[in-house]
């Protein structure tokens, strides 16, 4: 198992290296003068020349690459053109919002997905199975941003039940403590004795959670079902049944445990993809996380910010995949005992 983990760790470095190189090429290979594009038509030649020097664009490509690599390795992502602030700092401020949303979306998708998957597998070829799997197929066929807009339309505009966007009722003049608003809400409940912050944080989370969680929910349900069906055909399940063990115990104690192994990998992969899917969801719900920040940076042609954001999310994605892979090898006795 240790050999397997070391092998995965060794792959980490070239992967991150590849990510940084690709993102570097994004500016280097962009058609036209990136400094001109970033500043727009109204900037004069002097300003453009100054930005070129600032970004090191006046140097030869290979030297630019060396400098860029050197900076990124030291976690220096440069300054945003739009705000003039350190990109690393801007990301750090927005990351809790993204993580909070992704975490609840994943919690929603995993819990419901496993329950639905197991139910469909147990009731194979009944209407429960058909409607769940049909629903799952519709779920993966839907554009996330459209689902978000439809949810807003129905629950916020027509029914007036939930807020259309943001993270907290703006009239509360709330100053975040940890930047994880649900956690902050609980802290404030203890401090000020009112659950209104927590309530508002949860209300704001519901729709984006559903929108972002739908695709992983569908994929987890499908994976759980097929994995469960495969396990239920194994000999040891027949043995357990013929030994007179109750069906419930056979399913939950013997089958589900093994059926969940491939599901772990899917959950990890989906969690990573969720972070990039967040660009669309956060944009729809005005959720002040990294995704929306990247969207705004794209619109403003703030290339350094887009680069920084993409490097950050990709690194996170790679690390999550690594963590899941290690977790998988720890949980799976077939690999653990090798």
């Amino acid at each position, binding site marked *: 198992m240790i050999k397997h983990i070391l092998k995965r760790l060794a792959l980490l470095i070239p992967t991150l290296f590849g990510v940084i190189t690709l993102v570097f090429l994004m500016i280097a290979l962009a058609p036209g003068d990136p400094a001109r594009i970033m500043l727009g038509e109204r900037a004069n030649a002097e300003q453009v020349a100054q930005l070129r020097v600032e970004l090191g664009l006046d140097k030869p490509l290979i030297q630019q690459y060396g400098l860029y690599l050197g900076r990124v390795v030291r976690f220096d992502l440069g300054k945003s053109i739009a705000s003039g602030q350190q990109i690393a700092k801007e990301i750090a401020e927005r990351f809790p919002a993204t993580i909070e949303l992704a975490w609840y979306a994943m919690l929603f998708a995993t819990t419901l997905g496993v329950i639905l998957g197991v139910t469909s597998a147990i009731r194979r070829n009944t209407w429960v199975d058909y409607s769940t799997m049909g629903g799952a*197929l519709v779920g993966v*066929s839907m*554009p996330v941003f459209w689902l978000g807009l439809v949810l807003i339309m129905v629950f916020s505009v027509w029914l007036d039940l939930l807020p259309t966007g943001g993270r907290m009722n703006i009239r509360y003049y709330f100053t975040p403590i940890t930047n994880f608003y649900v956690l902050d809400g609980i802290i404030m409940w203890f401090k000020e004795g009112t659950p209104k912050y927590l309530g508002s944080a949860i209300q704001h989370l519901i729709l984006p959670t559903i929108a972002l969680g739908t695709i992983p929910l569908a994929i987890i349900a499908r994976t759980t079902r097929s994995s469960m069906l495969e396990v239920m055909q194994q000999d040891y399940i027949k043995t357990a049944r013929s030994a007179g063990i109750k069906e419930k115990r056979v399913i939950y104690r013997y089958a589900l445990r093994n059926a969940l192994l491939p599901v772990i990998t899917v959950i990890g992969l989906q969690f990573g993809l969720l972070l*990039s899917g967040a*660009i669309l969801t956060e944009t729809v719900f005005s959720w002040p996380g990294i995704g929306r920040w990247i969207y705004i940076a*794209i619109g403003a042609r703030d290339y350094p910010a887009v680069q920084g954001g993409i490097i950050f999310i990709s690194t996170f994605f790679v690390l999550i995949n690594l963590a899941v892979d290690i977790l998988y090898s720890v949980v799976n006795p077939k690999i653990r005992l090798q």
Partner: protein
Amino acid sequence: MKTNEVLETPRIKEPTPLQETWYHLKKNKGAMIGLGIISVFVLMAIFAPLLAPQDPLIQEVSERMTPMFTNGYILGSDDLGRDMLSRLIYGARISMTIGIVSVGISLFFGIIIGVTSAYYGGVFDKIVMRLIDIMLAFPYILLTIVIVSILGPSLTNAMVAIGISQVPRYARVVRASVLAEKESDYVLAERALGAGDFELMFLTILPNCLSPTIVQATLGIGEAILNSAGLSFLGLGAQPPTPEWGLMIASSKQFLTSAWWIVTLPGIAILLAVLGFNLFGDGLRDILDPKMRN
């Protein structure tokens, strides 16, 4: 009863792979529904100029946001007074093109990389696979954003970006099936008969490796339609006034409260088209993948 009649032995014709697949497909309800949906969209795409009641780009400012089934607008009009139905029909043309072109790009490079990598093996294969691992480690939505940023935002570039970002997946699928085939007797026989590398790779081995690739490509078309809608939504794909479905949603999102149909209908179109490819692709997989057939 005639007893002296010579019974003619019925000649059993071996079905071609296509006939066999069709035979199984016909029994798969999901796949047939999927095929039906795909056919409707393909016909819509081909005959768009004949089917669309109006020019999708003509604006009738006095008839902005006409509700459905009023004043001759079957599906209403949008915020600039353009006929929604006509725009949706022309949108099918764009989305089908996106799906086919981007999957075509992925297939072309994926097949070349996958086949050569598996066929030659050795250090070449190792390097290629490492590069593919790196590309797969990169979340593909971000990969497409990076590529579009390099090329500049447009519908064509979005297709190229989506196509390129999926190459590693196809290369992997093709490589796996070529590896399984390349030591088969028929390949060795062809080689003994003096077939060259190119002939062996693309004429002998490849045709026997197509099933998983076809499944991947069918599902890939749906995914490409979804991704391009997402890119257009972010302003990185189709540009106004193109009647691309994702862009139609993006440019009308502020009218959510006043004219629900402008936002909702293009989404339903995307959903149906992608659903069609997913249903058909899942059905094909069940049939073409012998592991799943039982």
